């Protein structure tokens, strides 16, 4: 009889996986910090991080004011979208689910593009409008789909898809009638743009993301039980409706906040959860932190490519997430299967 340790999820296992992924995250962030039009060697980056000054003033400015906040925001956005992807896939019982599927993306986009049309700034005006319209959209979708206080997955999904389609039509109208100068900003926003990252955005996002992910983590066993069906989860003592409402609202809230600063970055919330499930298995006590950290790593890497590959110009990061992510995902899918069983 083998020992119990390697069979069930223990705090130690979660901690060791979390620590290894955090180390990868730090390494990727340091490499990303060294890359860009102004070359700074990794050694210099390390000494700069340690507070020793072998880096000249301009480079130090670039690192502190431009690259670092951008890397941190990319990490936070990737973290949030992947975490949301895991939760939405389980609660909606759908492998295609990601945090945008209930209409948050098009909802935020309406606000952002409205803001761009009105000529608002990217520091306050555009993000604020994007966040408010994202929040309005998710409340609308949940309001339409709730019946007798319950949220039924397929109704919720269909409502989200329809609302998305409706808003996309409005977005296309704005794009078709936009002037060339604004068109560029709009398209970049729609495919994800991290070039406007500031520390102030981080200080808004970070506390919210931490609180919501903490609450979601306390639900990790609830989510495991919900995988076996909502009925049987209820029989085992899970307050399923409570878990659903809190999770949908919490995830939507943090997705809305990060998206209002980053624009729509697709694919992260879809593939990272699947990748992690293929590699680490379905237990959410491991899967939630692993996906969140994995999402941060993935988006930092993708954004580094986006801002360096055609330097001095940039690509929208969403282009890179799909371009790099899709082939890798297909490879793993062929090799390991989706890990989803159909009924």
């Amino acid at each position, binding site marked *: 009889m083998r020992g*119990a340790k390697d*069979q069930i999820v223990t705090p130690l296992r979660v901690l060791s996986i979390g620590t290894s992924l955090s180390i990868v995250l730090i390494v990727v962030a340091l490499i990303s910090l060294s890359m860009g039009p102004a070359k700074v060697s990794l050694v210099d980056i390390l000494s700069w991080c340690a507070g020793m000054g072998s880096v000249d003033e301009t480079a130090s400015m670039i690192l502190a004011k431009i690259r670092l906040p951008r890397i941190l925001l990319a990490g936070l956005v990737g973290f949030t979208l992947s975490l949301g992807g895991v939760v939405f896939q389980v609660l909606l019982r759908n492998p295609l689910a990601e945090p945008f599927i209930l209409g948050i993306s098009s909802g935020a986009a309406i606000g952002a593009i409205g803001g761009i049309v009105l000529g608002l700034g990217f520091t306050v005006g555009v993000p604020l409008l994007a966040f408010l319209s994202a929040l309005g959209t998710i409340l609308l979708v949940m309001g339409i789909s709730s019946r007798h206080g319950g949220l039924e997955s397929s109704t919720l999904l269909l409502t989200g898809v329809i609302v998305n389609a409706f808003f996309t039509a409005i977005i296309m109208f704005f794009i078709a009638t936009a002037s060339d100068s604004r068109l560029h900003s709009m398209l970049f926003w729609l495919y994800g743009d991290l070039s406007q990252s500031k520390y102030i955005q981080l200080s808004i996002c970070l506390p919210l993301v931490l609180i919501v992910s903490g609450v979601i983590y*306390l639900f990790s*066993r609830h989510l495991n039980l919900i995988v076996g069906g909502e009925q*049987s989860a209820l029989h*085992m*003592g899970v307050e399923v409706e409570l878990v659903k409402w809190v999770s949908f609202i919490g995830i939507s809230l943090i997705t809305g906040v990060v998206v209002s600063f980053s624009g729509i970055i697709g694919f992260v919330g879809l593939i990272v959860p699947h990748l992690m499930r293929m590699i680490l*298995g379905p237990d959410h*006590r491991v899967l939630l932190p692993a996906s969140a950290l994995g999402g941060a790593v993935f988006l930092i890497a993708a954004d580094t490519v986006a801002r360096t590959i055609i330097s001095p110009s940039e690509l929208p990061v969403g282009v890179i997430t799909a371009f790099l992510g899709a082939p890798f995902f297909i490879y793993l899918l062929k090799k390991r299967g989706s890990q989803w069983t159909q*009924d």
Partner: protein
Amino acid sequence: MDAGLKLKAVSFSYDAQWCLKGIDFELKGGELVGMIGPNGSGKSTLLRIMDGLLKADNGLVLLLNRPISTLRRHEVAKQIAMVPQETIFRFAFTVLEVVLMGRFAHRGLFPFEGKEDLEIARESMRLTGILDLERRSIHELSGGEKQRMLIARALTQKAQFILLDEPTSQLDIRHKVEIFELISSLARSQGFGAMVVSHDISLAAQYCHRMLLLNKGRICGIGAPDEVVTTDTISEVYQCPVLVDKNPITQTPRVTVLSRRAENNTATKPLRW
């Protein structure tokens, strides 16, 4: 052990259509009750009312002398476990992981199981004979093994009552018998009260202490198997001609379905018995 799971004059309706009417019943510790009745007679609804998932429109459901509607889900789950007909797990958890899920209601917010939980889960798996499957992915289990796993998960809940919703409907005869054997011996050894919904009337009659016959939302028979399962009541309630005689070995009622052809035969020439 007076504090059972009691239903007092329970009625329930879906969209103004009566589904259950005037149900009085008590499930006691240590007994095995078989619930039978035609499709649509309200068996599953009654089970869900007993588990507090549906709220009765009239009447009371008392769990250990407290109205079940005042209890939270995790409080109910410590007293009542459910073995569903079938559970679809989208992802490949292992057998041990699924059985451990039964401990959910006993843990607080700290999301990890302790040594004690593991011992209880292993003991349940030993009792159901699946201890050597613990590392197996649930997608690799046969129908009988899956049912045993779900029973083990219910045992892990350490509940006083276990409700089983057609646990044998997907199984062949050998596995049907094995599951009934298992439930009845567990109810005796562990002392929980069990209610099993089944369409295998003869088999249920062999193992159950009492039978409950449901028809159109009303109880139309409750008591010892040979009082409830008779030619007249079963033929009438199921609207299907049957013959009930005694199983020559167990002396419990045995149901033989009479095909239309057999019926015609009886009409023309008298049966030999």
